[in-house]
């Protein structure tokens, strides 16, 4: 009977998710990627978190960077490698190989490396080892056949010592690694990618192989910032969100009345779509203001207007922010969409959510996040998922290129409530309309309602029906006149 593979946390929460528990215990994991893609950082986090969170001391065998280099690189993340070393939780051993001064004069083996690593491991009782990067040996030693034999011996040696090892390697042209290390380290292989698309840097990670374990196979975005190495998996398929009780008001009583429960569910996702100028921001702003006025915290993230612009525009239609902003319950954040890559937008949202702990978040507009297609859809799904997982009500606005009941955002299936705004042109005038396309979990009005923007706010007009027709705008007024007569 096969024993379940034992795993150790990788030190990166999102990566543990992708690998269903972490890296294989007591085995070597290969991490390959191009220069600057984050291999060293991942290795350090694996050891630091291993020591701090799991009581597993670690050895970092560094072939390229010195111990000082490494300490400086991670100081911005807040890890004190020197302190960890002093406490016997970490050894950073820089192996200096200077190819110019090494002469090969006869047969040799790499036992010195084994002795050195063995002494390091024994000194602190290390359970984790990172070797970064073996490529340097290939560059320095001429006897490649010997090197390969010794590497094979090294990985067997690591297994014997029961340490969980992470081995970094350079990406190859035709093969996974430049020197074919994947032949020797094949229990678990991770690939880090670092590419620039549309002038935006994007980092992606993929579990290429994981012997004996299920794992996610898609490329997943990751980031390296002041919190370290962070992976953001697409987890909406888990659908573990708890259903939340509580009703959220839009601030427009007649709109609330169109919903079976008198508003939207707290913690749900609400999408407001419409053509330009259809008052999406007005309604989104109304949700935010109402939440803040009711004692909750609302975060409004705008990709089109500055806070001042936004407040001014909303004030003209009766949605007043200043009081709520002053009370600290309403926070306005404006970001330029082109300033960040998708991952950074997500990180910014995460940061604001952690910092402000809002009950409701507005993202206006979603279509402002730039780029198109699968990348954006995946990122939007992640953002929506982030909010749902924390039971935060999400209000999102989206642009419709024409007045159809479709969006090109590709997220309508993960949205709970969908409100669409329109403009009907008839008889030389334009009339504003709104309608509920979908409201999961409740009954709702399916009428298309006319509304106007006054300086007191949004007012829905009563539906005027006569003889099976609905009248709006001037035709409505005319018909009402005729009926009164």
């Amino acid at each position, binding site marked *: 009977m096969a024993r379940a593979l034992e795993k150790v946390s990788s030190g990166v929460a999102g990566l543990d998710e992708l690998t269903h528990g972490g890296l294989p215990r007591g085995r070597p994991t290969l991490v390959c990627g191009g220069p600057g893609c984050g291999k060293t950082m991942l290795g350090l986090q694996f050891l630091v978190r291993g020591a701090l969170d799991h009581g597993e001391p670690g050895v970092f065998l560094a072939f390229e960077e010195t111990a000082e280099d490494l300490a400086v690189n991670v100081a911005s993340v807040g890890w004190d490698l020197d302190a960890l070393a002093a406490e016997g939780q970490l050894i950073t051993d820089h192996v200096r190989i200077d190819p110019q001064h090494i002469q090969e004069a006869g047969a040799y083996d790499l036992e010195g490396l084994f002795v050195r690593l063995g002494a*390091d491991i024994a000194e602190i009782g290390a359970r984790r080892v990172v070797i970064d990067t073996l490529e340097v040996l290939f560059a320095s030693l001429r006897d490649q056949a010997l090197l390969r034999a010794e590497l094979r011996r090294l990985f067997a040696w690591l297994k014997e010592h029961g340490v969980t090892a992470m081995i970094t390697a350079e990406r190859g042209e035709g093969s996974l690694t430049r020197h074919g290390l994947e032949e020797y380290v094949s229990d678990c292989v991770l690939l880090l990618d670092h590419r620039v698309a549309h002038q935006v840097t994007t980092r992606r990670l993929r579990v290429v192989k994981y012997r004996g374990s299920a794992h996610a196979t898609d490329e997943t975005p990751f980031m390296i910032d002041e919190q370290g190495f962070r992976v953001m998996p697409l987890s909406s398929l888990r659908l573990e969100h708890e259903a939340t009780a509580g009703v959220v008001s839009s601030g427009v009583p007649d709109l609330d009345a169109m919903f079976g429960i008198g508003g939207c569910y707290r913690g749900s996702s609400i999408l407001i779509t419409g053509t330009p100028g259809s008052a999406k921001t007005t309604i989104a702003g109304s949700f935010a203001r109402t939440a803040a006025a009711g004692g909750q915290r609302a975060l409004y993230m705008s990709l089109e207007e500055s806070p001042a612009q936004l407040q001014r525009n909303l004030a003209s239609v009766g949605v007043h922010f200043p009081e709520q902003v002053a009370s600290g319950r309403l926070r306005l954040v404006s970001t330029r969409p082109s300033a960040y890559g998708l991952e950074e937008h997500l990180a910014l949202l995460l940061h604001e959510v952690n910092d402000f702990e809002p009950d409701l978040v507005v993202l206006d507009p979603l279509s402002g996040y730039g780029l198109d297609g699968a990348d954006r859809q995946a990122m939007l799904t992640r953002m929506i998922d982030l909010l749902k997982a924390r039971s935060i009500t999400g209000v999102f606005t989206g642009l419709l290129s024409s007045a159809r009941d479709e969006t090109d955002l590709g997220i309508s299936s993960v949205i709970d409530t969908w409100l669409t705004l329109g403009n009907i042109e008839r008889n030389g005038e334009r009339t504003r309309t709104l309608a509920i396309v979908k409201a999961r979990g409740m009954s709702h009005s399916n009428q298309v309602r006319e509304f106007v923007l006054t300086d007191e706010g949004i007012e829905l007009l009563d539906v005027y029906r006569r003889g099976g027709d609905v009248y709006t705008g001037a035709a409505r007024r005319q018909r009402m006149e005729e009926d009164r007569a």
Partner: protein
Amino acid sequence: MTTPEPDAKWELRLYVAGQTPRAITALQNLERICEEHLAGRYTIEVIDLRERPQLARGDEIIAVPTLVRHLPEPMMKIIGDLSDTERVLVGLQLRQRPNRP
């Protein structure tokens, strides 16, 4: 690279990991070469990393056997059982390297 002073005292260290046949071969080769080229002005210290593992780190030893010339400066390293005499001589600067273009 300048050749060392003719009268300088040589300090050589041979790092091994246990008394393996290769280690013994290296020592024998080294003694032979030293007698022939450095008679009377050298010392050889054999360091067994099995007994003093911390020196692997201190002296940056990865391969064994490794011969390190501590004096005269600059420090030179040669790895292997030293059976390639020419290489050893070049590495110790006892033989000039052929001129390169």
